[in-house]
């Protein structure tokens, strides 16, 4: 059983092929993280899933009446537009005050109710966006680079919140990460995308190893994990520099496929 599924999907954006032959699916309560370099089609995949762009070929199948909570990558609210967090949460559907208060409290932002959206910090803004998605009572929560602009403890706190929400709501979670190797440790699957699905697998939970703790810091309480890229196919990328030793796996990912 899947909530949403694509088969052999190809998406063209303004002349160039952004995604080709993508097979993707997500099951209820699953946490899937998509990684990939800039311009690899991560955001395009999310937009295709919410129906904002139409695939040129292939198919998207959604479960009937699937409720999707969507948190966009960046949302710039113009200084000329006055709007409080409360009013923002009522767009486009009006919500009752109790639900709004509960959603804001759940994401730790109860004090932002009457604040102007343009006055919020990056982390506060993300929490309000998350609260808005929660008000949809989603079966699938889609987040586009939710940790952009947050420091590592901030990212870790957001990841812990998302993992808790999965358990409370029973919702599946699909998120895009701009980091290639460091992902949310609760991810069931990681998909590496670069125009097509390069590789997919499970993240390594490494929080206990001292060398990784040194890397991730101690404040993350196991919220972060490492994803090792294991490619099942090769690319005909021209070598950029002959002097670099061409090894496999992780490092080739940065300049080769991913």
């Amino acid at each position, binding site marked *: 059983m899947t909530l949403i599924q694509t088969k052999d999907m190809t998406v063209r954006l303004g002349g160039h092929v952004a995604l080709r032959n993508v097979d993707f699916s997500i099951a209820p309560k699953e946490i899937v993280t998509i990684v990939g370099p800039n311009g690899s089609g991560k955001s395009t995949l999310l937009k295709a899933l919410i*129906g904002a762009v139409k695939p040129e070929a292939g198919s998207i199948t959604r479960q009937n009446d699937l409720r999707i909570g969507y948190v966009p990558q960046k949302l710039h609210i113009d200084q000329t537009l006055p709007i409080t967090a409360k*009013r923002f949460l009522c767009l*486009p559907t009006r919500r009752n005050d109790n639900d709004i208060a509960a959603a804001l409290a759940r994401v730790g932002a109860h004090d932002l109710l009457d604040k102007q959206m343009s006055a919020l910090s990056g982390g506060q803004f993300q929490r309000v966006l998350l609260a808005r998605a929660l008000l949809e009572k989603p079966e699938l929560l889609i987040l586009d680079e939710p940790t952009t602009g947050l420091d590592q403890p901030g990212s870790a706190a957001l990841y812990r919140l998302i993992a808790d929400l999965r358990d409370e709501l029973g919702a599946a979670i699909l998120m895009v990460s701009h980091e290639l190797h460091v992902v949310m440790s609760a991810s069931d699957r990681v998909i590496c995308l670069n125009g097509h699905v390069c590789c997919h697998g499970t993240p390594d939970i490494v929080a206990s190893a001292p060398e990784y703790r040194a890397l991730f810091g101690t404040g993350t309480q196991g919220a972060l994990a490492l994803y090792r890229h294991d490619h099942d196919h090769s690319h005909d990328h021209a070598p950029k520099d002959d002097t670099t030793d061409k090894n496999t796996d992780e490092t080739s990912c940065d300049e080769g496929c991913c």
Partner: protein
Amino acid sequence: MLDDFLIRATLAGIGVALAAAPLGCFVVWRRMAYFGDATSHAAILGIALSFALSISVFTGALAIALIMAVTVSILSGRGYAMDTLLGVMAHSALALGLVAVSFLPHVRLDLMGYLFGDILAVSKNDLIVIWGGAALVISLMAYRWSALLTATLNDDLARASGIDPRREQLILTVCLAVVVAVAIKVVGVLLIVAMLIIPSAAARPLARNPESMALIAAALGALSAILGLRMSYVHDTPAGPSIVCVAAGLFVSALILGRVRASFS
């Protein structure tokens, strides 16, 4: 009562101010000021055409404004350098309209009246057109308010909620053409954008939510029309520009008031 030209003028000014307020807010939020210029300047061409074809000025101006607004709306999605493109279109349309007028030697056209408005010559029929247009724009915007706001915040957020941002853009475009067509008589094509933007910009520092900004803009716009006409009557100044001058004065006052309030809170 409507036999008094000053009362007719005041009602015309208030009608335009009420329709321009909510639309003007979107023009400010979406940074569409140049878009408004292009649409309103093109209306001069519509006026020339309406004389050539012997149709009403309102119909001619509305038709050309609609064509211009839709053209600009389509081009805006194509990634051109918009300010340059709109600058080209706005002023070409205005120049073309002025040249077209000169080809109509048998028509005595009061060009100044269309460039700067002729609110004191508003007839009862004009009042019906202005208030009809205003009612259309206000009800259309009230009906689509939430969707328009969501689409203004973010295209993807709108699409995820089942709102088509292009349709909302088209609604704003049509409203803009209607406001331009009804406002020509009141402030003229050169000052229409002023009636859209200045009351909204003045309302910004006084508002905490989009709805209150639109309501305050409507009040300030109506106040500008009333005080502007009064000033015009007392000091014998041109009516349209007087209304805009009062609006500009209100804008400066609102700005200062907003600053003072911010420094005390």
